């Protein structure tokens, strides 16, 4: 297996889903089973990603394989010289692991959908859209430059628009699709501005070249402030796609799409793209930028977690849980726990996909009933779904032996260490609070859905376990939520191959004094290791990873056990509370809700974000649009028509005035104003003679301008 073979495989992985999309789109009407083509294509893609993953990690574990070609070449620019806009692939460990995850989940979702979507009017079209979506997402993961990433970023946006609004005949569905796209677009505008800044500074879009130039000291407008701004603008894209506060509002609405789509979009692919972007641009993020990112992440972790507590729609709960978990990852990136963030991205992808598909299975069984207060006791009817759902929930709550425990623990550990070094204790506090809330609402969900008495007897009686094609993905995903895939030691992920071998934190390109203090290259240590006291060189001598200071390593080490036990404790607390409230019913949840009604309402109504946005941004835009349309019709266009009326009125007035007082001077003034009116009037009295007068005046002006004497 050479590097070239790997690139060939990557090309095939990228374009096969597109072929599937085109084929099914064009022949879906004529060939009844066109969707089988798409499914086989995606299976082949998955096998290829597995091959790619295996070969990359075994043969080139430390190598970044790049292949590029020039897409647009602009020559002889006056200032910049030749510019070539390249497209290309970057295969590093990050991208091959990610593409494997994407392809796996995409394949499972395809298979799950065979049964779930059975009988839909646009059955084939649905699979075509899934193919398009997989193509776009693969593009984001495999690309080696920011422009191509933006291109596929938008394609993901549009394919999510198509998928979320798949049942377009429902107004709520098409609304949700539109909202998703527009909210994403807000983030994208920020991202594009960031790209403009990057291009303006480095004249290239390729990540490697940007990093190299930045490490050599080129900064946007030569200032660290603008570097921070660049990083934050690019992060805006992630805020949109990963549904971070304050742009998280689209994600819960996006649950209007078919449930497998929710699993695909909101677990592993689209929302993960934002976190992936931050991972990609990590080298250019300054300390200040990272801090703001951490704050946004913390807010996005806490707020949706509180909202999830009170939701009754099974998919909404999961949606808010997704936002909250993504906030977790972003916060982890912000506090410097890069590896754990990416680790959580992968583990979360599997168990959240499992949860969504599980909820799909429940909804399918209950004939499209989504309200958990109307379910209950489904454990007996859907044993397999229950088992897988439980495993995934345990993983999400961070219970040992699951993958979620490992990654979540790592993130909490990271915030803990960060706090001990910088004193921002709110981050770990937020982390632990969210851990408890997560455990609570997940078990609330499980208890209400699977335990207790069935509340809707009729639907309950008709419920039945899902067919094989739906059960198989659930089983696969729930197995992937167990620890042994990632590390042999169920309590410490550091020892595992995933973190020690595969995922390397990138070398920072940011100038030393713009970094977090614990990420500054330790000059002394490099002297001691290399015997060279060259500061300029010190960024590169260390090789492939971020150099954390010894204090940080120390802090991480110390944080390990406290974080682990504390997180276990809060998770257990959360679960216990859930049981107290909903299983044993020791405390009435309704009564408590009534006692703290304002808080309950705040949570139940999603902190009124939608209402606030509707009342401000949307209302402002619509208002100004209506105002401007009115302005256009009546002021700009009416400047012509309106002035005409006024002038007509003026001239009739002056006409009368004239007939009363015969005064040559007044006459002259009046007619002069009438003449101005003639110009400003629609120029269309319809009388040739009026036009002629105008012509005469124009001639006078022209002759005067060009007079020869």
């Amino acid at each position, binding site marked *: 297996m050479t590097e070239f073979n790997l690139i060939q495989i990557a090309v095939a992985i990228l374009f096969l889903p597109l072929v599937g999309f085109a084929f099914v789109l064009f022949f879906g009407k004529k060939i009844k089973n066109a969707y089988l083509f798409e499914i086989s294509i995606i299976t082949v893609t998955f096998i290829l990603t597995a091959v790619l993953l295996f070969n990359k990690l075994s043969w080139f574990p430390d190598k970044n394989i790049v292949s590029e070609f020039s897409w647009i070449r602009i020559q002889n620019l006056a200032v910049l010289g030749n510019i070539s806009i390249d497209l290309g692939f970057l295969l590093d460990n990050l991208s091959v692991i990610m593409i494997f995850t994407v392809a796996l989940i995409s394949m499972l979702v395809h298979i799950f959908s065979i049964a779930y979507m059975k009988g839909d009017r646009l059955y084939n079209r649905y699979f075509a859209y899934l193919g398009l979506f997989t193509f776009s997402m693969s593009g984001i993961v495999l690309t080696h430059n920011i422009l191509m990433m933006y291109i596929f970023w938008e394609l993901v946006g549009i394919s999510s628009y198509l998928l979320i609004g798949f049942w377009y005949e429902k107004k709520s569905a098409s609304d949700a699709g539109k909202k998703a796209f527009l909210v994403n677009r807000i983030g994208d505008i920020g991202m594009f501005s960031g790209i403009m800044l990057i291009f303006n500074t480095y004249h290239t879009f390729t990540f490697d070249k940007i990093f190299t130039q930045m490490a050599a000291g080129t900064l946007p407008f030569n200032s660290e402030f603008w570097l921070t701004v660049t990083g934050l603008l690019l992060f805006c894209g992630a805020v949109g796609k990963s549904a971070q506060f304050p742009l998280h509002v689209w994600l819960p609405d996006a649950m209007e799409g078919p449930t497998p789509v929710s699993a695909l979009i909101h677990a592993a692919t689209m929302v993960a793209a934002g976190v992936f972007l931050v991972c990609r641009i990590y080298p250019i993020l300054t300390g200040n930028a990272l801090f703001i990112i951490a704050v946004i992440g913390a807010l996005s972790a806490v707020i949706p977690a509180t909202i999830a507590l009170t939701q009754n729609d099974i998919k909404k709960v999961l949606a808010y849980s997704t936002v909250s978990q993504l906030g977790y990852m972003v916060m982890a990136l912000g506090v410097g726990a890069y590896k754990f963030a990416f680790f959580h991205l992968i583990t979360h992808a599997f168990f959240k996909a499992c949860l969504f598909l599980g909820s799909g299975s429940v909804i399918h069984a209950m004939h499209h009933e989504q309200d958990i207060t109307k379910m209950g006791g489904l454990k007996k009817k859907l044993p397999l779904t229950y088992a897988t759902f439980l495993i995934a929930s345990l993983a999400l709550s961070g219970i040992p032996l699951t993958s979620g425990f490992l990654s979540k623990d790592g993130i909490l550990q990271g915030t803990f260490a960060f706090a001990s070094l910088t004193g921002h204790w709110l981050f770990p506090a937020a982390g632990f609070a969210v851990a408890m809330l997560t455990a609570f609402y997940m078990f609330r969900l499980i208890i209400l859905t699977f335990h207790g008495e069935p509340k809707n007897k009729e639907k309950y009686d008709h419920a039945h376990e899902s067919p094989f094609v739906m059960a198989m993905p659930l089983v696969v995903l729930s197995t992937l939520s167990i620890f042994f895939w990632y590390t042999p030691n169920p309590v410490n992920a550091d020892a595992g191959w995933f973190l020690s071998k595969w995922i390397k934190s990138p070398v920072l390109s940011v100038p030393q004094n713009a970094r977090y203090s614990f990420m500054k290259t330790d000059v002394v240590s490099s002297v001691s290791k290399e015997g060279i006291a060259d500061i300029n060189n010190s960024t590169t001598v260390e090789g492939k990873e971020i150099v954390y200071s010894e204090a940080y390593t120390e802090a991480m080490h110390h944080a390990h056990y406290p974080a682990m036990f504390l997180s276990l404790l809060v998770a257990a607390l959360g679960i216990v509370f859930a049981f107290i409230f909903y299983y044993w019913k020791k405390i009435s949840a309704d009564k408590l809700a009534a006692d703290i009604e304002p808080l309950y309402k705040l949570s139940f109504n999603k902190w009124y974000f939608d209402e606030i946005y509707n009342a401000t941004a949307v209302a402002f835009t619509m208002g100004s649009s209506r105002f401007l349309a009115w302005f256009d019709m009546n002021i700009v266009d009416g400047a012509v028509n309106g002035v005409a009326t006024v002038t007509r009125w003026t001239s009739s007035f002056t006409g009368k005035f004239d007939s009363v007082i015969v005064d040559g001077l007044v006459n002259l003034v009046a007619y002069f104003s009438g003449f101005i009116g003639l110009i400003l009037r629609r120029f269309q009295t319809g009388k040739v003679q009026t036009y002629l007068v105008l012509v*005469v005046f124009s001639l006078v002006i022209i002759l005067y301008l060009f007079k020869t004497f």
Partner: protein
Amino acid sequence: MSIYDIIFYLFAAITLISAFFVVTIRNIVYSAFFLLFTFFGVAGIYVILGADFVAMVQLIIYVGGIVILMLFGVMLTNKITSVAIKTGTSQIVPAAIGVGMFAGILTATLVNSHWRKVDTAPLLPTTQSLGLMLISEYGIIFELLGIILLIALIGAASLARK
């Protein structure tokens, strides 16, 4: 002030004064008659400028043809019995201002331009040489004009017949 000058001023006065009446007087029939005088004055100016043949053509075509045509137009389009042979005017003041300014600037331009003049040649009869030019150098244009006249004749007849 030679006799030449006096004749010039005479014709100029006839032309301009009657032209003024053409455009100001209310009765159209009178206007037409003043138009006749204007053309006559113009013909006189032609003579002063040594264009004897053109002057004759002017008299024959304009005075004899076009003015009569105009009168027919007036008669045919106004009820003779009514008093409507008068014409209304509109937008006198802006027109007067505009045209006044225009006249001023046009005159100033023409008068102040430095024309490259040659010495005036002695006045000679022009009819023969014009005739020669019309059938030699300007032959095609002459023919074309004939066709135009024919077309105009047919066109006018068919238009008026409708």
